């Protein structure tokens, strides 16, 4: 049994290195249904990891996009949204964002403004989908216009985690957008991150090869 588990883990790890991995974050007020949407999409197949220290829940999911295997990390807030803002690490290297409000509660729609603002501070370019959840509570809302998404030219979905309307489509589209973003990322911050990462590598190799030159003696500042 242990061997089988170990083998499976090794296989998982080997697979993970071969496939594309993307990170998709969920944003939105308390009780808008973020976790319920994820659970509806993943059904029983999900294995959430509660990272309570970081007030965050992680869901791993394997998808295929245009024949390519994709490992998706869905990040869910687990109550952290109550600080009205998320820790910077939540946004770090995210490739797409699903931003949810509750069609029954105006305040959750109004708060999209501040969620969106914070998202753009950390991730100026990643795809972001605006989601109107709980349409099962009142189908009439689907006959009304919500201008927030249009204002920022974002895709907009009416969904219901309860009856399932558009939930699978939402997540599949989010995964596609995340993969496309990762593969053709023009995000300024991503480029900076890449530069920094390769810079670190270069520096280390330089340090190894000719230590003296790359680490000049420290001199007191000249007056």
């Amino acid at each position, binding site marked *: 049994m242990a061997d089988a588990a170990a083998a499976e883990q090794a296989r998982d790890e080997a697979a993970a290195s071969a496939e594309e991995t993307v990170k998709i974050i969920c944003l939105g007020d308390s009780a808008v249904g973020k976790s319920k949407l994820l659970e509806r999409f993943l059904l029983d197949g999900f294995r959430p990891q509660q990272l309570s220290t970081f007030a965050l829940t992680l869901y791993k999911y394997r998808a295929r996009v245009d024949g390519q295997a994709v490992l998706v990390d869905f990040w869910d807030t687990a109550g952290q949204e109550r600080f009205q803002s998320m820790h910077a690490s939540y946004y770090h290297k995210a490739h797409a964002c699903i931003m949810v409000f509750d069609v029954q509660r105006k305040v959750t729609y109004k708060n999209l403004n501040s969620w969106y603002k914070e998202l753009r501070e950390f991730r100026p370019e990643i795809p972001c989908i605006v989601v109107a959840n709980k349409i099962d509570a009142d189908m009439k*809302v689907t006959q009304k*216009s919500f201008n927030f998404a249009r204002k920022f030219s974002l895709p907009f979905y009416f969904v219901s985690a*309860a009856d399932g309307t558009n939930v699978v489509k939402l997540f599949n589209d989010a995964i596609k957008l995340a993969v496309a973003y990762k593969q053709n990322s023009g995000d300024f911050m991503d480029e900076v991150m890449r530069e920094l990462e390769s810079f670190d590598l270069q520096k280390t190799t330089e340090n190894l090869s000719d230590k003296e030159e790359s680490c000049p003696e420290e001199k007191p500042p000249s007056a």
Partner: protein
Amino acid sequence: MTYIAKKCGVCFQPPSIILIYKEDNKDKTRQRIMPVRNFSKFSDCGLAAEQLKNNPRHKAYLEGVSLHQLQKLYSLLKGHLGGESLAESLEKFRQEETIDPEEDMNKLDDKELAKRKSIMDELFEKNRKKKDDPDFVYNIEVEFPQDEQLESCGWDVESGEEI
């Protein structure tokens, strides 16, 4: 012996919880009166409900009655003992069981948030299509075109940023 609970209510005088039930495989409807003792307007309804539900003499009869319902019945009794009219008590229930759409739930503590969530969960469960339902469909796609002619949701104005 299995008992099928039909109705459960409260009697203020003498204070008691009353159950209408049937015995399994029998037609006769029976009534069971469970007297409420040592309960005042200062008592904890949750605790009282639990004690009744676990009472060895009543346990079997109350299997089909939820703790939540018993708790509500005790709350009605408590309200009555505290001088509330039945209408007032019921109005309190209504308020506790509805969501204030203006409330910012980000500002609630864990307990209050859990309360709101459980209220909203009722509708969620009611409208929920479960995986095991015979008419369950995993991927349901419905198009809702957002064209310019639609009536506004009314939430876009007055935000200051809109100007």
